[in-house]
């Protein structure tokens, strides 16, 4: 628990040498992803308002907030499902406009949704490569795909699956989550967004998934983790971003927060114990 925040603005945690961009935002060059004044309306309804968020590479950013706070809309703006109504999104310091999940995924942004989007009737290798199979003269190169899958799962320390030729339908919830994440990593994603990855898991499987999240960060991949479970958040996150009624009310290094201040921010949008941000 930290009592003395080092600065009043969460985005000044790193000293940047990058040239300031003409957007007027500071330091976006050092971040993998930066949002400036991003808003999304559905007709007259403002789902999110003026969101400024910076996501550094190799760190886990936990996005928390009550139901309806706008977490899902925010990640959908990032992953290309909704175009933002206003504001700018910078990817590696360059402004981008993703109009589809496909375009976002080409940038290197992968989203692992709660339903995981796996085919139960296909095996692990087939799921990992779905949509981008390796072929040799139009024939599927099963051996290369299987070797690469094994290699990657070993790298990610996913050791609980018996065989990569197992049908995904026969895997446990934690294993399925691991496969979905591994698939995102395999596609050279630099930012993996995970929506409630541990919501439906038991204790040991949750631990597996959290280990996997740390493994991703150790590989230099940025992770945005949506979670309702503050225990998980404080276990794995490097940074925290709290949403309240469509606004990002606070974000910064996890050491600036503790469970009490996080709960206060989630429920009231402000906390006397944490730095005021935004």
């Amino acid at each position, binding site marked *: 628990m930290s009592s003395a925040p080092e600065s009043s603005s969460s985005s000044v945690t790193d000293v940047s040498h990058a040239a300031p961009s003409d957007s007027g935002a500071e330091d976006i060059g050092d971040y993998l992803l930066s949002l400036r004044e991003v808003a999304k309306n559905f007709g007259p309804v403002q789902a999110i308002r003026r969101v400024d968020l910076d996501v550094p590479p190799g760190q886990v950013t936990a996005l928390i907030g009550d139901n309806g706070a706008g977490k899902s809309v925010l990640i959908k703006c990032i992953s290309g499902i909704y175009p933002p109504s206003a504001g700018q999104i910078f990817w590696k310091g360059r402004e981008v406009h993703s109009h589809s*999940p496909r375009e976002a995924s080409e940038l290197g942004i992968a989203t692992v949704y709660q339903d995981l989007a796996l085919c139960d009737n*296909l095996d692990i290798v087939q799921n990992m490569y*779905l949509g*981008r199979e390796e*072929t040799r003269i139009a024939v*599927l190169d099963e*051996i290369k795909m*299987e070797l690469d899958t094994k290699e990657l799962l070993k790298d990610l320390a996913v050791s609980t699956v018996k065989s990569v030729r197992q049908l995904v339908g026969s895997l446990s919830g934690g294993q399925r989550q691991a496969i979905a994440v591994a698939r995102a990593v395999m596609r050279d994603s630099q930012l993996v967004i995970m929506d409630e990855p541990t919501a439906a898991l038991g204790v040991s499987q949750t631990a597996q998934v959290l280990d996997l999240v740390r493994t991703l960060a150790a590989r230099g991949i940025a992770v945005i983790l949506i979670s309702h479970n503050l225990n998980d958040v404080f276990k794995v996150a490097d940074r925290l971003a709290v949403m309240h009624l469509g606004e990002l009310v606070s974000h910064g290094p996890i050491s600036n927060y503790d469970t009490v201040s996080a709960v206060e921010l989630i429920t009231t949008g402000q906390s006397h114990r944490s730095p005021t941000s935004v």
Partner: protein
Amino acid sequence: MSLSTPDGTVPPEIPGTILGRLPIQAQIKRLWQSETGLGPILIGLAALILYFYIRSSVFLSAGNITNLFIQATIFILLGMAEIWLLLMGDIDLSIGYSAGIGGAIAVILTSTTHHWPFWVALPLGVLACVGISTAWGLLCVYLRLPSFIVTLAGQIGLLGVLLYLIDSQGNTGGALPVQERVLYDLVNADLTPFVTWVVILAAIGVLSLMILRGDQRRRSAGLEAKPTWLTITKIVLLVGAGIWLILVFNTDRSHFTVLEGMPVAIPIDLGVLALATFILTKTRAGRYVYAIGGNVEAARRAGINVNRYRILAFTMSGAITGIAGLLYVSRLGGISTGIEGGQYVLYAVAAAVIGGTSLFGGRGKMIHAVIGGLVIATIDNGMALINVSAAGLYMVTALVLLAAVIVDSVARRGASTIV
């Protein structure tokens, strides 16, 4: 007796022997439940054959077995056509009459009034079926209509088209005979005994080589391959079955003249089986058909053009339906207004399901249509031999279909807890 040593640890040699047995048992269990999934139904087929043989020794005569294969041809081909759609959770109720139309076009164009060459007329017949199925695919995909209803309308409409085609040839009494040699020979000609040897041995050789090479490539890549005993057993069974078939086909089946060799229809079946299996298991298109059947949303999010591959599956189904139509008119020596297209569809679906294909998409193989088609033809043929009435025939077919589904679902329930 306790397995533990006094200090509480387990002596190393004992768990070694206990655990050493497990892989084999697990292997056999896996073989039974998932290897090909064909175990139960093959045993069922063997039981049926044995039963009919006991009741009538004619059943296993060369002539009857050859006949049985020809009977099965239409069920097998229509079953394969249906599996392309069942894999995606779709169905085509119109393929019976669609096949009839393809066959009728070939019959009409090659008739003595029109004189088109067979190499134009036969492909045109197949192409008609491709067009029909693709049209259903376009309707289902772009207007998001359920294939059941679209093809139900198709079944009714195509019967009308077929009647119109036959009537348009003047006063024929509702039947058009095949008047062209090649079309007639598709089912009724036999390869010479020598060519029969060559064709079957070549097929077995290619298949065995593919199995061995696949195993060998996996081993040299350091991957786990099927155990050698399993591969060898497979190849031995393959060679045994092949040689038995050669001997059966090459036995003279006629009492009056010489009738021997494999009917041409069988290599046609095998060719379709090989090509369709190749596409389904070795290419992206096949993979995507399974993915769409398993989880269409996941397929879409993986960037797969779901619409394109759904239509492709309809097109493949149409091509196989067209070939089935040609063999149908060849076997019957013509096309008549009495074709039971609706019943053929139901037999096609039954063949697929008996073989192990799911009606809900995502699970099935081309070989299922072959096994299921043979089961249905065996019942058809055997019941006729032991003089069971049509009433009994239908009831037994229904029971076999039910039994196949029950065995399949029970085996699957077991599998999900084992693997």
